[in-house]
């Protein structure tokens, strides 16, 4: 089975398995477990047990268990996205579009795994793991969490938040970010290349993921077909009656066995191959959101710089004519200057963080994909060998039938 947790911890700076709790090395490990369906009808949802083991001093004790639901994870992601601009926030699994599968065992398990991976990636990230919001998420009482969650999901809170949301929506449109409309864009060639890479990458990955998903379906279909075929062959065998009939029956039974193997492989394929690909796509989309943030920061920096220049000119003018507005204008100018410097700092932080993140991202993805490919290969080999063995075992029986 894929072990994202293990891999993530190998990667992070202070890595230790959750089992060995040596108090010298700081560690933080989380597991998302025990999905339980709560509520009724349309209001029904899944809750998870989130177990935190840590020796961080900021945390309340070595172990803490809380109950969380999907929208709590969304809250965490949103907070991190706001506070840690420039860092690629780990992606969340989608809210299921198809109602019918929302509570299917497979979907629930896949989501649980994805949420587990999500939290552990945060817990392994050098900066993100220090987040206060993470602490809140991992430790706060359910009522507190509920309050925070509903507070966040109210749409019209503050005008600036509205602006932010609007910008976010806007920034999803690739044209804008790629600078086809807005004149204010970075002129960094390398960064342009990166942006282009990210957008292209998403397309390629989406296609691969699409085919991976189809492959899962094909396994299921072929499995079902073999089962139907097996049944029909068994009936034919029964109507034949003699040695040949027996041969048919054996064939039918083998077909049914293989049908089961195919269904199992379909499941494995879904969890260990298709899901990692989907995760990859989500990660790229998260990067796109960061790219949008960077664009916003850059724009803000430019706007403030512009405004500041204007204010400076205005101030000089006022000073020249010795207006009493000078003091106020001066104050405003200094305020603006501070803001501008802040905006510049924000932007530069984002740039710096991103360049670190991208390297880390590439490494992580090579690892993640490597594991997925390995599991894919193992699964397919297992299936193929199972099929070969099953059919080979039938041959002596067939020989026996024909000789009689």
């Amino acid at each position, binding site marked *: 089975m894929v072990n994202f947790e293990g*891999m993530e911890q190998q990667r992070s700076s202070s890595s230790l398995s959750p089992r060995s709790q040596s108090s010298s090395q700081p560690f933080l490990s989380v597991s998302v477990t025990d999905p339980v369906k709560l509520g009724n009808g349309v209001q029904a949802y899944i809750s998870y047990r989130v177990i935190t083991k840590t020796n961080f001093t900021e945390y309340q004790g070595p172990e803490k268990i809380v109950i969380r639901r999907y929208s709590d994870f969304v809250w965490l992601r949103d907070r991190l996205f706001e506070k840690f601009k420039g860092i690629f926030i780990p992606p969340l699994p989608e809210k299921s579009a198809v109602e019918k599968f929302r509570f299917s065992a497979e979907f629930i398990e896949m989501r649980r795994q994805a949420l587990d991976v999500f939290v552990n990636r945060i817990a392994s990230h050098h900066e993100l793991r220090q987040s206060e919001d993470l602490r809140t998420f991992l430790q706060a009482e359910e009522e507190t969490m509920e309050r925070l969650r509903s507070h966040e999901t109210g749409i019209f809170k503050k005008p600036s938040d509205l602006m932010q949301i609007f910008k976010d929506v806007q920034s999803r449109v690739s044209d804008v970010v790629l600078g086809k409309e807005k004149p204010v864009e970075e002129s960094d060639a390398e960064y342009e*290349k990166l942006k282009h890479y990210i957008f*292209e*990458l998403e397309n*390629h*990955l989406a*296609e*691969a993921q*699409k*085919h*991976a998903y*189809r*492959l899962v379906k*094909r*396994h299921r*279909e*072929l499995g079902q*077909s*073999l089962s*139907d*075929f097996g049944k*029909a*062959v068994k*009936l*034919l065998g*029964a*109507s*034949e009656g*003699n040695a*040949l009939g027996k*041969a*048919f029956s054996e*064939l039918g039974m083998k077909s049914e066995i293989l049908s089961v193997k195919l269904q199992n492989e379909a499941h494995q394929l879904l969890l260990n191959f298709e899901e990692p690909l989907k995760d990859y796509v989500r990660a790229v989309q998260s990067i796109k959101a960061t790219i949008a943030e960077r664009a916003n920061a850059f724009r803000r920096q430019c706007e403030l710089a512009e405004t500041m220049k204007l204010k400076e000119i205005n101030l000089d003018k006022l000073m020249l004519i010795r207006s009493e507005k000078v003091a106020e204008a001066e104050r405003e100018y200094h305020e603006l200057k501070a803001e501008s410097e802040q905006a510049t700092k924000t932007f530069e932080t984002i740039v710096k963080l991103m360049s670190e993140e*991208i*390297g880390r991202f*590439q*490494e992580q*993805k*090579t*690892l993640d*994909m*490597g*594991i997925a*490919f*390995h599991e*894919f*290969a*193992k699964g*397919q*080999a297992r299936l*193929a*060998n199972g*099929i*070969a063995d099953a*059919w*080979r075992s*039938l*041959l002596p029986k*067939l020989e026996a039938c*024909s000789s009689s």
Partner: protein
Amino acid sequence: MMNQDHVLRASQDDEMESLVLHDDAENGGDSSSGNVQQPPQSPKAPFNSFLDPPSYAEAIFTSFDSNGHDQTLENLTRAGSGSGTESDSIHISVSDPQEEQEVTNSLVPGGSSYHTYLITTRTGKSEYGVRRRFREVVTLSERLSEVYRGYVIPVRPEKSSVERKVMQKEEFVEQRRLALEKYLRKLGLHPVIGKSEELRVFLQVQGKLPLMRTTDVASRMLDGAVRLPRQLFGAESGVVDLNDVAQPAKSGRDLLRIFKELKQSVSNDWGGAKPLVVEEDKEFMEKKDKLMEFEQQLSNVSQQAESLVKFQQDMGETMGELGLAFVKLTKFETEEAEFESQRVRAADMKNVATAAVKASRLYRELNTQTIKHLDKLHEYLGTMLAINNAFADRSSALLTVQTLSSELASLHSRIEKLEVASSRIFGGDKSRMRKIEELKEAVRVTESAKICADREYERIKENNRSELERIDKERQSDFQNMLRGFVVNQAGYAEKMAAVWEKLAEETSTYSSDSS
């Protein structure tokens, strides 16, 4: 159809595949490269007629045609082992379809066209060829049905006018050519028909087929209708001609007989006149029921087999598409690589792409072989139809016998009545005596006819029996071979695929979380 797109895409795909695999010298799936370029068409034809070969059958015949010999070798060895010596075996092929113009006397210009096919026959000693059109094949088939009653005669290809309109001309002609070849070969393999004069004439005699062209029933009925009033009025003896007795009423020009037999069959059904059934009929009925049951199951399996082939093909296609997606990713990452980790990933993806593309090819090959084996099922459905025809021959012969029996019975009872009535009249009754004489004559004729009919019925029964025995034996061995072939095939390709995936697992083993 999707033919064009499919071929186009296939060539694009192959281009991309070669991008990945050019440095890969392993044999993997490359062994039978001849088949690879032509992906089998996806089976779209609904499973309606027993006679239509499943559309997937096209693929196998196309691919083996290019190699030339597999299918025919099978036939030759069968002929050789089944029905005797080497010199008995005949090898038939149908080729070179040509379009010809219908020669009409009408004033309307632009007559319709038809296709002729070159039919070459090779026996141990000689070789000959003729050109025939489909209509002549129909004639041959009808003639054989008339002459070889009770035999299980392979069913001829359909006229299929719907398909002719829907399909492209070349496609249709090719499909027909294949069907004709298959049909004629089957005829050649039949122990009796293969040696028949009718078949020989068809295969050998140049020019228009000299076999009697039986007019269709409708026109025969019309002709018969002309005679009907005279028979009813008794002007003509309503008694059946000896020669005609050997033929079922439908092919004779005897409308009255058709009516009589219809009446008989109705009375049989209603259990009015007790049919003079022979004891062994019960055994026959049992056998017939069993065969019907078998046919049902066979049809079911054939349908599922068709589905199975479709899904195997889908699997292969999707695997191929996945491979291509990874080829593109590989190319992309390689070109855009800024970090070493990207190059590593590109290498990994290339391995995945290679494996997927190889697996896809293996699935396609597997499918081609699967079709070849499972096609036997479909073939036997055709045989079931032919068996039903043979049974129908038997039923109609029995009906003739029964009709004559009850005819005789009614004649006898009429004679008896007349004799009783006549004996009451002192000195005899001249007209009645005359009538009695007539009837006695009719009885004599009818008795002869009945002897003929009995003989014919027995002959047909024996044909049925020996044919069923022959077919049963053939079916046993055919099905055994089919099963073995199918299983060996599945196992073999599964092993090849396992090798492909094990290689990929090996190549990605650095990412393994196993302690080994």
